[in-house]
């Protein structure tokens, strides 16, 4: 019987570029930048990396398909590299591959690197790229990402009989909080503080989501080097160790999209992955034990419903927790301490590793006092790809020993 990945993998080093409109940088530049920081942090030589996973989604916009661009950009010495793509969950998928290889004992040290260069599309929002296949062109709705996620709000309002104005209050609070956190972070894409009034007065993007309910579309890269706890201990005897407690993923089965048993007010996948992740990590009460979270706030309403799907807020009570400040920086479980996708930015193929970078830096107490999460020992990343009725959810839980 398999016993999961808990405590079998340690994070030896991480790197993350500044996210944003990196007009001066190519995807290859971003790779070099994230990798350089990561390798320095790991304190090893490049040749010690035995396997690598490259995550990137819209590669047609920048460096093309396959793993080859990573090998050639970093001049990796003929090692096996896997290229993965799982929509916005891509970077977590790369991490999962690297961690599984280490946990399985097929290599000692592995690299996971996620990168995306979106700001060469020529327009705002995610590129239109036939992401859901050709049949969607023939018979799919004329949608964009904001509209797909906006429906969470109309479905949630209908399910719980809550007025849209109250949902707008709560999701405005979500965005205001993330902007406040992002404003303190020099690597974040969007660094302006906003007020609830500004958020609610912003132009409508997809009802009921306004501009400030949508995350930044950014360029960026992030990387992790993982190894066994034993090797980590030998390489860094005097440093806290951040170990992987769980990596769990769930992919839609078709039920949400085509069967009549889903209410559209949340993510089935997140709930399934969360239940498995807490068991793998040995967490009995996530509301008590999780110290901080970086969740996939592609839209404010996504963060809102995810609080329930992760079993942190009781069903139907996300509004209360959010408005009570439970997820604020000084709340019980700070959510998006680095600004989240909302403000740190969302270079699709890098985001999962950026979330982990944020938690890792917090657990090692490397962040300045004004944005430090107090006494956190365990953090969760929630990385989501796709649309509410058809998606992949990847959760990673890491802890400091």
């Amino acid at each position: 019987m398999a016993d999961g990945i808990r405590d079998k993998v340690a994070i030896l080093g991480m790197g993350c570029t500044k996210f944003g409109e990196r007009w001066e940088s190519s995807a290859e530049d971003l790779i070099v930048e994230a990798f350089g920081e990561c390798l320095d942090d790991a304190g090893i030589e490049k040749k010690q990396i035995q396997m690598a996973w490259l995550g990137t989604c819209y590669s047609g916009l920048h460096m093309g398909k396959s793993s080859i661009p990573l090998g050639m950009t970093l001049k990796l010495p003929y090692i096996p590299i896997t290229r993965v793509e799982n929509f916005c969950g891509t970077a977590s998928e790369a991490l999962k591959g690297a961690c599984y290889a280490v946990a399985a004992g097929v290599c000692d040290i592995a690299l996971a690197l996620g990168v995306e260069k979106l700001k060469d599309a020529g327009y705002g929002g995610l590129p239109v790229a036939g992401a859901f296949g050709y049949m969607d062109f023939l018979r799919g709705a004329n949608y964009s990402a904001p509209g797909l996620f906006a429906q969470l709000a109309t479905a949630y309002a209908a399910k719980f009989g809550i007025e849209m104005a109250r949902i707008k209050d709560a999701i405005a609070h979500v965005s205001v909080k993330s902007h406040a956190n992002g404003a303190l972070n020099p690597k974040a894409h969007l660094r302006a503080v906003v007020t609830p009034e500004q958020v609610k007065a912003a132009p409508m993007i997809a009802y009921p989501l306004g501009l400030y309910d949508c995350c930044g579309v950014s360029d960026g890269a992030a990387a992790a080097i993982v190894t066994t706890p034993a090797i980590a201990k030998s390489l860094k005897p005097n440093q806290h160790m951040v170990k992987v407690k769980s990596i769990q993923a769930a992919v839609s089965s078709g039920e949400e999209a085509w069967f009549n048993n889903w209410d559209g007010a949340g993510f089935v996948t997140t709930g399934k992955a969360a239940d498995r992740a807490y068991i793998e990590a040995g967490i009995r009460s996530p509301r008590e034990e999780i110290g901080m979270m970086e969740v996939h706030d592609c839209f404010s309403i996504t963060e809102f419903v995810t609080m329930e799907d992760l079993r942190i807020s009781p069903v139907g009570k996300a509004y209360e927790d959010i408005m009570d400040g439970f997820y604020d920086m000084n709340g019980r479980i700070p959510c998006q301490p680095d600004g989240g996708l909302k403000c740190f930015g969302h270079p699709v193929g890098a985001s999962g590793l950026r979330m982990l970078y944020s938690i890792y830096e917090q657990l090692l107490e490397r962040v300045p006092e004004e944005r430090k999460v107090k006494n956190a020992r365990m953090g969760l990343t929630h990385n989501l790809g796709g649309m509410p009725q058809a998606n992949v959810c990847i959760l990673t839980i890491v802890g400091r020993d």
Partner: protein
Amino acid sequence: MVGICSYSGYVPRYRLNRSMIYKAMGWMNGSTIGNAKGEKAVANFDEDSITMAVAAGMDALNGCHSSAVDGVYLASTTMPYKERLNSGIVSAALGLNDRIRAADFAGGLKAGTTAILSGLEAVESKRLNTVLVCASDCRLGKPASAQEMVLGDASAGFVLGSDNVVAEFKGSFSTTYDFVDHYRGEAALFDRQWEDRWIRDVGFEQLIPEVVNGVLDRCGMKITDFTKVVYPCVYPAARKKLNKILGIAPEKEQSNLHAEIGESGTAHAPVMLAAALEQSKPGDRILVVSFGGGCDALCFEVTGNISRMGAGNGISWRLNNKTALDNYTKYLVWRNILPVDAGLRAEEDDGTRWSVVWRKRREVLGLWGCKCRNCGTVQYPQQRICVNPECGAIDRMDEYPLADKTGRVASFTGDFLAASVNPPAIYGNIEFDGGGKYLMDLTDCDLDEVKADMPVVMSFRKKYSDDRRGICGYFWKAVPKREVNNG
């Protein structure tokens, strides 16, 4: 007995007030003020002659066994495809049998009645049992032209057969002349016409009496034998004169619906016939005359079966189901008259992969889903493995029609980011009554009126326009269910 077994008229939901056109374009051509009365029906941005024909066909087939249809004729001078059988698209959308005859009738505006005549003759000769005829037009007048004022969009549908006939076919007479009142060349977008006075004096006032007298002679009838006379002349003075020449009493003149729809091309006489049938009683006689490239005249006698027809068959609920298109510029954009910047997103080119369209023709054009033989779960798109997690049966599906089903909005949005010439793009998850769920576009509605749990019906629409290749693709959208109400 051979005749009309069912009928329908379709009018698109949007109406453009002619005074609004004058306000926008009257500075260019002040003489159009004479036409600046009433409103004209305007196809939505996602409608064309094919989609309107399908809408009329669905209404006409309502309550009929569509499996009995063995012929489909489409009449239009605005066929979206020059090469590709337009009536074949209509047939697939209506879920009709593959082994049927289909033909496109085009050219002169009398093509609508000619298609009806051909259908009646096919049934009379017992070559075909049941023929569906749809006439549909969506002609364009150049901005500031008289035609811009006059032309309107509409369609009509007729099921022709020999069982349960509601209006018996009593005879016909046809003339054919190369009388060019209106014309469009091979590549023309806009309708052109010759002088009104000539069309009126030489066209309507000579050709209509000729065909009417021809049919009366042939059938041994008098004009006073008819309860209603249908003829599609838009000139009020000419109508008065014709009524006098022919002896048509005022109450027997069927309205040309000019103040409500406009001159609707091949559909015009058929639309007026549908309106006349809706008001008719058993024993009524209706004379239908078309005009354009000559004339057809057809005589019908209404039977007792007329009482079987529901309000959904007629045209008056469609006339009442309307909303103002209160923006002339939007009309120009919808009809692709005014180039508009819909953003870079609109420039993505996926093309049409015809082998895929062929493979998925039932699913896409016909909105056929499937139903699991094992557990009864309805699903769309068609699946090989049942989506019910308690079932999961493999290859146990029967085809199941969804185009005729009602549904409910489970979630929705109005999306200003998605590329559209009618923003916001409104769409949502639709749960079909009886099972099945799919994320679909909504159309013929404003965001303000969309609510969770709102009932919807299915409507065949243009899914995309491919300007590079000059074609469009079709799929189904959800439309708020409106009450069929003739009041």
